[in-house]
């Protein structure tokens, strides 16, 4: 019996997995046999179950993605800020040399819109800032380039999002002129501050709703996700109900198709969803936000869980996390998990899943 066996003192160990053959008496072989015996004594190390591993992997992966995006954003700021600062300094020096007054900023005390988030190329006609928090005055043209997107908060309270290759003018707090591309409006369910999107083909009016207006070369497409909207085409007012896409062709031909609230066509809207703070937000409020952004219905597996968990107060930030990714990161911290059944996000306790076969 080797020294190791004496220490471990385990008689009757199972038949060993034989190490590779080597010369008799070789210390390396003796060591190898001892290690093999010790490992057999210990057996395989315990491991987390596949469901448990998957849950943690999903949550940690989501957190990692948030960090990576935040890191890229932090690294981008100096590249934007330094040239802007240099340009600003240059303008000031020229102005001083010529004894010219510096131009006053056009932003009034009540901007029409505030930039909440931008990704990719974004331009504004007044040359102002395109960083989050920038204010947009009356008459500003906003353009996104290829791959660019932007989310703004209108003074009327609605959330406005611009898809790639879009040009829009802020005519007033409630009137937007869409010249090309696509916009998404979410009034947040509020009434009384209806927004009109004017296009060369017709005008779309919001009735407390979520909808997209997409202007093509020779067509106009309006898709309503929630509530209803009206499209004024010449003398006609066409009502468009939730779940419907209306397309108007160049000769006035109209077609309607069905589009669910969670259709993949809404994906670009999720990609540019404005960030929210989780701090002091309840789980119920968080899920309401997820539902509004994703178009999913949210359902707790049982009433008791809903009553017990919906009032949990959350902390932290979701910065960089898409609304459809957020539940996987947040729910496990509340002892919950979720899965999608069609367009329904079903939420259940983690321990219920553990108990399932």
């Amino acid at each position, binding site marked *: 019996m*080797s*020294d*190791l066996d*004496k*220490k*471990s*003192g*385990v*008689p009757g160990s199972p038949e*060993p*997995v034989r*190490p*590779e053959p080597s010369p008799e008496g070789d*210390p*390396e072989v*003796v*060591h*190898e046999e*001892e*290690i*093999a015996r*010790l*490992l*057999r*004594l*210990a*057996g*395989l*190390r*315990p*491991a*987390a*179950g596949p469901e*448990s*591993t998957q*849950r*943690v*992997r999903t*949550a*940690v*992966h989501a*957190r*990692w993605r948030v*960090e*990576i995006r935040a*890191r*890229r954003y932090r690294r981008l700021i100096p590249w934007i800020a330094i040239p802007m600062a240099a340009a600003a300094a240059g303008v000031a020096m020229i102005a001083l040399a010529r004894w010219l007054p510096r131009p006053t900023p056009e932003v009034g005390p009540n901007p029409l819109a505030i930039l909440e988030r931008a990704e990719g190329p974004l331009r504004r006609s007044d040359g102002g800032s395109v960083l989050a928090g920038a204010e947009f005055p009356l008459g500003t043209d906003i353009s996104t380039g290829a791959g660019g997107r932007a989310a703004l908060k209108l003074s009327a309270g609605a959330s406005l999002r611009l898809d790639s290759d879009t040009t829009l003018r802020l005519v007033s707090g409630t009137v937007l002129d869409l010249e090309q591309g696509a916009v998404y409006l979410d009034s947040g369910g509020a009434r009384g501050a209806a927004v009109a999107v004017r296009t060369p083909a017709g005008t779309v009016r919001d009735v407390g709703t979520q909808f997209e207006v997409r202007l093509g070369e020779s067509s106009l497409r309006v898709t309503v996700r929630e509530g209803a909207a009206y499209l004024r085409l010449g003398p006609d007012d066409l009502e468009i109900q939730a779940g419907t896409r209306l397309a108007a062709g160049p000769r006035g031909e109209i077609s309607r198709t069905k589009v669910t609230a969670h259709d993949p066509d809404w994906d670009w809207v999720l990609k540019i969803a404005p960030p929210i703070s989780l701090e002091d937000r309840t789980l119920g409020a968080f899920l309401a936000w997820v539902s509004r952004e994703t178009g999913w219905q949210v359902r707790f597996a049982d009433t008791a869980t809903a009553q017990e968990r919906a009032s949990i107060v959350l902390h932290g930030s979701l910065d960089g996390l898409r609304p459809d990714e957020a539940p996987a990161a947040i729910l*496990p*911290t509340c*002892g919950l998990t979720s899965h999608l059944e069609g367009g329904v996000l079903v939420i259940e306790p*983690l*321990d219920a899943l*553990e108990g399932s076969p």
Partner: protein
Amino acid sequence: MIEAEASDRSLVERMLSGQEEAFVEFFDGHFPRLYRFAMARLNQDADAAEEVVQTVMCRAIAKLRSYRGEALLFTWLCTFCRREIADWHRRKGRTQPFQLPEDSQETRAVLESLAAGVGGGPEDEFHRKEVARMVQLTLDSLPNPYGDMLEWKYLQGHSVKEIAARLQISPKATESLLTRARRAFREGFSALLGESLSPDSSRV
């Protein structure tokens, strides 16, 4: 060990640059070990271990930029894990049920009892379990993928060729890694027991 730390530092750099395969390597290489680390300190409560390890890995990811490679990544994660486990016990209004030998200064004393000879009684079963735990602890402490390789070879009976295929390296490189894995295991286990594993050792 310095080589392992450099490899961990490189892994962290790749993670910070957003490489998906680096995340997979990080998660697969550390989650199982951290999970066992937490289980042993949470009375084998699987739910608690999952909760704690998820929190630890998320927190560590948020602080990944501060990892300087001065210790192994697993050691660094264990520091977070110890703190989180203490918080977990505090939140649950429990005192930490026991301190593991490897967490205390009394490692040698505890382990020396293992060498006191074993018969067939319940105490011997306890000793057997302790040795088993120490073996698993040593495997978990080895740089990746040493622990897995040793298990594949000596517990699951995989050939060098099979292990090479699994790791996508040559059989020769696998042999070399196995030799280093055995050496690392021997040194790690010896350090835990406080004495050499040499077959010539007369101490029991």
